[in-house]
């Protein structure tokens, strides 16, 4: 109930109405701004889970645009923050605040996030739509607590204008329209035993997810090929080949899993529509760390934008490599070559194997978060408490990223090379986000 707990703080304040409003001293503008930033990200973690098109790549894109929206909304009223316009591919300057006019940044951020979330999740179901409306109303009231009406109106207009600017930019990236949950109607499988074939009996997934995602416009890195990878180990069915040895490692590991390895595989499974997805998992980690550290508004905004941007870039870069090499999954190879009855413990995702998407995006996330919080920042991860999975503790973000990577081998869905090189790819991609200038 992590989301609900947070949300209901807002709700209770709103429901208690004027009595509480008069009784309480409104929080400071930066504090209210940060609350708006965090609460919308938390709601979006739920919306990602409950919106069918939001596979991990699509989810990462939403986190990126929300992060940019929030950052730019804050930056328009901050002398300390430096706009990302001209740094992110295709982003131009967002509308400025009117000279000499008073704005409230909390109302600006709240309005910008509400507008952007409603548009990015226009395709969510009836329950998500209700939640968006209720959140806009109640969080809007909370952000405006104690702010003069004229300032509220002006600030809301500005927030929406910033969001509109970002949404117009988003519409041109090639990833805005998702048909059939991302599964193309026509797709020709690559011939040959080295290449991906469907791994399940779901009719919709007899073609791979989002084969063109690697061509989506990137944010901080030049393009999807900027952090390209060397080829995976050469395909071979010879027992002395590296390919066979890596497959054997997956088979043997899965067949002899320890309880701890099984728990790790489940913890990082992050299945779409059953979790906030892998990028959402890292957003959840970041939000917890920001709240634990009581991070100020600039730090919160720049952390979430760097993280969102690098997660999105990671999926674009990873997908570029996946469809460059179009490698067969362990499930297919092991059943064909080693053990026809072998089963992985996780559902094999419906797209090519190399590199591991979770590894790439976890490497990128760890690169960014280590820069913000430090390379030895220990934290507890309770992302899946609501789903009954216990909290796990890590000595650093990289320790978590490496565990996320190896979880895919424990789960039986990736070979070791895809994991190790995925982490390397993530490190490369994360560096682009870290290179963004966010302060004056």
């Amino acid at each position, binding site marked *: 109930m992590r989301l609900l707990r947070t949300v209901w703080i807002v709700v209770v304040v709103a429901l208690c109405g004027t009595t509480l409003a008069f009784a309480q001293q409104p929080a400071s503008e930066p504090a209210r701004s940060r609350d708006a930033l965090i609460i919308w990200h938390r709601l979006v973690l739920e919306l990602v889970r409950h919106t069918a098109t939001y596979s991990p790549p699509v989810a990462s894109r939403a986190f990126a645009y929300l992060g940019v929206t929030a950052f730019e909304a804050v930056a328009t009223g901050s002398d300390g923050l430096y706009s990302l316009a001209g740094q992110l591919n295709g982003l131009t300057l967002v509308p400025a605040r009117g000279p000499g006019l008073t704005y409230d940044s909390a109302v600006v951020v709240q309005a910008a996030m509400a507008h952007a979330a409603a548009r990015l999740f226009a395709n969510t179901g009836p329950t998500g739509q209700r939640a968006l409306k209720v959140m806009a109303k109640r969080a809007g009231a909370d952000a405006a607590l104690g702010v003069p009406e004229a300032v509220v109106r002006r600030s809301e207009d500005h927030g929406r204008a910033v969001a509109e600017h970002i949404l117009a930019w988003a519409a041109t990236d090639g990833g805005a329209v998702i*048909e059939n949950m991302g599964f193309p109607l026509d797709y020709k499988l690559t011939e040959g035993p080295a290449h991906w074939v469907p791994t399940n009996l779901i*009719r919709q997934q007899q073609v791979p997810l989002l084969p063109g995602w690697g061509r989506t416009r990137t944010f901080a890195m030049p393009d999807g090929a900027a952090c390209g990878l060397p080829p995976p180990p050469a395909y071979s069915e010879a027992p002395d080949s590296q390919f066979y040895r890596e497959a054997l490692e997956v088979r043997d590991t899965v067949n002899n899993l320890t309880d701890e390895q099984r728990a790790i595989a489940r913890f990082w499974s992050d299945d779409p529509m059953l979790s906030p997805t892998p990028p959402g998992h890292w957003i959840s980690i970041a939000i917890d760390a920001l709240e634990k550290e009581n991070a100020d508004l600039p730090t919160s905004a720049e952390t979430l934008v760097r993280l969102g941007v690098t997660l999105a870039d990671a999926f674009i870069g990873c997908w570029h490599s996946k469809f460059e090499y179009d490698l067969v999954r362990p499930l297919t190879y092991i059943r064909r070559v080693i053990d026809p009855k072998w089963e992985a413990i996780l559902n094999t995702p419906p797209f090519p194997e190399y590199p591991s998407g979770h590894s790439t995006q976890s490497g990128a996330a760890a690169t960014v978060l280590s820069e913000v919080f430090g390379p030895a920042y220990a934290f507890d991860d309770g992302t899946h408490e609501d789903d009954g999975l216990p909290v796990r503790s890590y000595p650093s973000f990289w320790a978590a990223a490496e565990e996320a990577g190896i979880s895919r081998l424990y789960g039986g869905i990736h070979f070791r090379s895809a994991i190790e090189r995925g982490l390397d790819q993530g490190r490369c991609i994360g560096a682009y986000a870290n290179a963004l200038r966010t302060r004056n």
Partner: protein
Amino acid sequence: MRLPGTLLAAVLALGCPAAQAFETPVPTFVEETAASGVQHSFTGEWEFMVGGGVATFDCDGDRMPDMLLAGGTSPARFYRNASAPGSALTFEAQASGLELDMVSGAYPLDVDSDGATDIVLLRVGENVVMRGLGGCRFERANEKFGFDGGDAWSTALAATWEKGAQFPTIAIGNYIDRAQDAFPWGSCTDNWLHRPMGEERKFAPPLPLKPSFCALSMLFTDWNRSGMPSLRVSNDREYYKGGQEQLWRIDPGKPPVPYGPKDGWKPLKIWGMGIASTDLDGDGYPEYFLTSMADNKLQTLAAKPADSAPKATFSDVAFAKGVTVHRPYTGDEVKPSTAWHAQFEDVNNDGLADLFVAKGNVSDMPDFAKKDPNNLLLQKPDGTFEEAGEAAGVASVETGRGAALADFNLDGQVDLVVVNRNGRTQLWRNLDAGSGNWVGLELRQPAPNVDAVGAWVEVRCGGHTTRREITVGGGHAGGQLGWIHFGLGAEAKADVRVLWPDGSQGEWQPVEAGGFYELVRGQAPRRWAPGR
């Protein structure tokens, strides 16, 4: 003039070069909504985005299926079947006492075994057992039966008679905590198990079935032919956290226990909305069709060891059998489908169970098809299915929810009613089920459980045995009680027998095609004709 289904299919194929060639006789359904006298809509917004069930049963003694339609924010509506045998479908709205509002679903069940069918109303609010008084009049019986209707968003029901019980056991599936109207995710409320109060003819206070995961369909079913039905629960993953599909062991006198990994049960997480079951492959064990969004599931036991009881491990054979029905087959929408009520019936009397699936967008869900035609999947001799909804005339793109396949005019051809959300309920008459023969059967045994819920009926002809489990539950928010239809193909005669709920086995007894038979326990089949 009646055109045989196969001929009609051929004519259609000739007339339209793009028409599909079918391997099975395609029935001809004609929509008779306008003339039927049924004018009803299941209405409501968020709290009625699910539900919309229909119950079919006979309450006036003419053995023709009457029906109750859930109304959501509108009152439920009862329609007496006034059809002449073999003629157009005709219904008359009639005050029955069942006209409550906030009804999401309804299941017929003779709770007190007095021979007058009772109705359990699933509601957003208090569930109500309505006792049949005869003549299609009903009265509230919660107090009389000791039934605690609670206060929840109820969406599913299954009933059985546990061994030795004088009263049924009713499982109620509940959905979201409706107080969490803004952020309902993870707020699934407890399902309930209403068991008999000892030897008394009333219910004990309900047991919570923990954990509960927002059930949208439940079915008591003897999946392993142990003689003791288990409770299958299909859950909506949209709202649960940490949930999955469920199977509960409900042993008499013992607390319910969910099947788990040690029993072979494997987690399956779908947008579970409806359950249909029948023994498709003739192995004696039921298969289960589970409706969902995008791909639907057809489960069969993964292994059936000859020398031991099967484990609760199921394989999905929907793809192999051609029943994933994951996206519209008409129109140009490329978005996935949303499936609700499902039911196996032999609609073309070829001796093979066919499958109907009601389809419809949840509510303003742009990622899923808006114009989502109902499916009519005809089983082919090789066990796979072919889509014939459009050719048969039932490919409505209204927003379907509940449905029932029943022979409303007792002509030996299965008709169809579909409840649409915020749209008019539709009726189709099956004008031509092909040239196949059929038989209609009805079970009767002394109280308790006069309708023999939990029995298996077997029909043997042409070297094949088909069988059906008599259940109350499944589908989406509605069920049927009445004639059990078997297609016989070309066979003019068949042998039938009943495996009664207490485990006793009836004798094989002959019946002739084209007739309705009462199978009264311990007696020879008694032929019955409409209008007598």
